[in-house]
């Protein structure tokens, strides 16, 4: 009885903290369904006096969130697929191949990990421009997926190098070729890494701001949700309820994806720290 009561004590402290912590999200959900009139009155009240779907509709149709949503889905999926394919292949070669130059490649990758990204947006912009890709989907996708995803490569590398040699040898004995061994034997074993890389890059790309902002400055219809949010404050001169509805539309997919993949997210981060 006493033990049970003691177990409740931390929650009495934690729950108010958690509510305060989550307030911005609670505000978002409630504001998305409040009328514009009620939003203008302001206040910290979380329960809408009058429940409306008007904001969601306004964001989806008038503010072109339907387009932004599809752009985000297309760009994010392309980025994730490119990163998985490229880094799984590189991780396999670097993790299991003992070829000359391997160490130099890994060293070069690690060195660049510590350089801040702010410096590189102009050369990337010029590169995309010189490939005449500016203001296209390809520009955003390449600029996001292009920079070596060092964490992903290292994760794949580590995982592949820990797979026992016997497994590969027995596949070779069965007459399997390099590509078959990679795609049928090795790659399926890295499911946890694929999960981790997927969730990290899904979230990263879905939430990307600078790259889609810079590469779609002249083409509003290519905007992603993150950049599209911004336009709420111009076009609709601070339409708070509409913004909340738009934000809710943008945030929901990441939360759903996170709920499904959270195990991989946490295991992946853990792996990164334990190195």
């Amino acid at each position, binding site marked *: 009885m006493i033990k049970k009561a003691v177990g409740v004590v931390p929650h009495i402290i934690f729950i108010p903290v958690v509510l305060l912590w989550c307030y911005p999200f609670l505000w978002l959900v409630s504001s998305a369904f409040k009328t514009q009139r009620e939003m203008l009155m302001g206040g910290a009240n979380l329960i809408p006096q009058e429940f409306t779907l008007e904001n969601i509709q306004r964001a989806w149709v008038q503010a072109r969130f339907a387009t932004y949503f599809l752009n985000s889905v297309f760009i994010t999926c392309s980025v994730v697929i490119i990163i998985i394919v490229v880094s799984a292949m590189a991780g396999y070669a670097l993790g299991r191949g003992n070829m000359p130059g391997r160490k130099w*490649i890994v060293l070069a990758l690690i060195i660049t990990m510590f350089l801040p990204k*702010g410096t590189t947006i102009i*050369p990337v912009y010029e590169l995309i421009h010189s490939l005449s890709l500016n203001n296209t989907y390809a520009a955003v996708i390449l600029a996001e997926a292009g920079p070596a995803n060092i964490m992903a490569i290292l994760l794949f590398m580590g995982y592949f190098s820990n797979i026992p040699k016997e497994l590969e040898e027995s596949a070779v004995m069965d007459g399997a070729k390099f590509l078959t061994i*990679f795609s049928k034997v090795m790659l399926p074993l890295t499911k946890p890494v694929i999960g981790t890389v997927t969730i990290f890059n899904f979230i990263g790309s879905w939430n990307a701001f600078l790259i889609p902002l810079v590469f779609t400055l002249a083409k509003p219809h290519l905007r992603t949700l993150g950049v599209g949010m911004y336009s709420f404050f111009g076009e609709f001169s601070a339409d708070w309820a509409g913004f909340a509805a738009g934000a809710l539309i943008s945030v929901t997919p990441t939360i759903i994806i996170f709920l499904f993949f959270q195990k991989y997210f946490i295991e992946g981060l853990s792996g990164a720290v334990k190195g």
Partner: protein
Amino acid sequence: MKVPSVELAKQRPRNSLLNGVRKHAWHYGFVMPMLVLFALFTVWPIIGSIYYSFFDWDGVGPPTRFVGFANFKELAFDGYYWNAFVNNYIFALSHVIIQYPLALIVAVILNNAALKGRNVYRLLVFLPVITTTAIIGLIFNILLHPVGGSMNAVLTGLGFQPVNFLGSPTLALPTAIVISIWKNIGVTIVYWLAALQTVPQELIEAAKIDGATRSKILFHITVPLLTPLAAVILLLTFVGSLHPFDLIKTLTNGGPLFASDVVDTYVYRYAFSPDMNLPRYGLASAGGLLFGVTVMIITILQAPFLRKAGKNLNT
């Protein structure tokens, strides 16, 4: 002509590179896509930003007006640049000082198996991490709005004066820091949780059987075992908070009166902002580069500690 095996053995040193390449053709092929992207999108941008920083260039056509160190000289005497530079380091160091230890405390609480519902707490801690930073910036613009924002509704309700958090030059940067810590602490918490899990449970059980108290276990087992990873987490926290472009751009746009300007927003203003007359890519590149170099130096200074940490971890 067939080469006798003895000859082949003699030639091996000379041909070893070629043989190596041939033997590992598949492996090289597999690294290739990554290397091409790496060259184009990682190496070239680094070289390019150094190259551009020596030109006076508006981005039209290739850079032709070589100006030597003129951009750096201009930056050195530009108060706005140093303002952004200092703000950027205040921003990052605040994360190290506040977020780093705070995350450890939360991780220790969440690591306690006796705490029920800790998965739910962990999930909630992550909510800000997985949310678009740009959206967070705009949400807080509304929540902290001096007229009608929730925060000020609560303050006035409690009898306080309303505070213009984002419109005040003294409060804008600290407010941005607090929001950023709220947004990013979940990542550091997971780093700490991972580190805590490297402490062998058997060791703690054994200590408990030997009658060690909780604090003794904490200071004599957990902390020493965590130290090497703590150095890694420190660096990750620091590096992770060095470019708060998305948050600053949407929250304050560097204002008011450049009070929350950081290097990324300074660079963006000179390169992409339509309010400025002509883009100045050279100056913008130089600004990013100068900051990047200082970050590199700090990282390199930490390297010996990290190497030591790595060694400790392996033994």
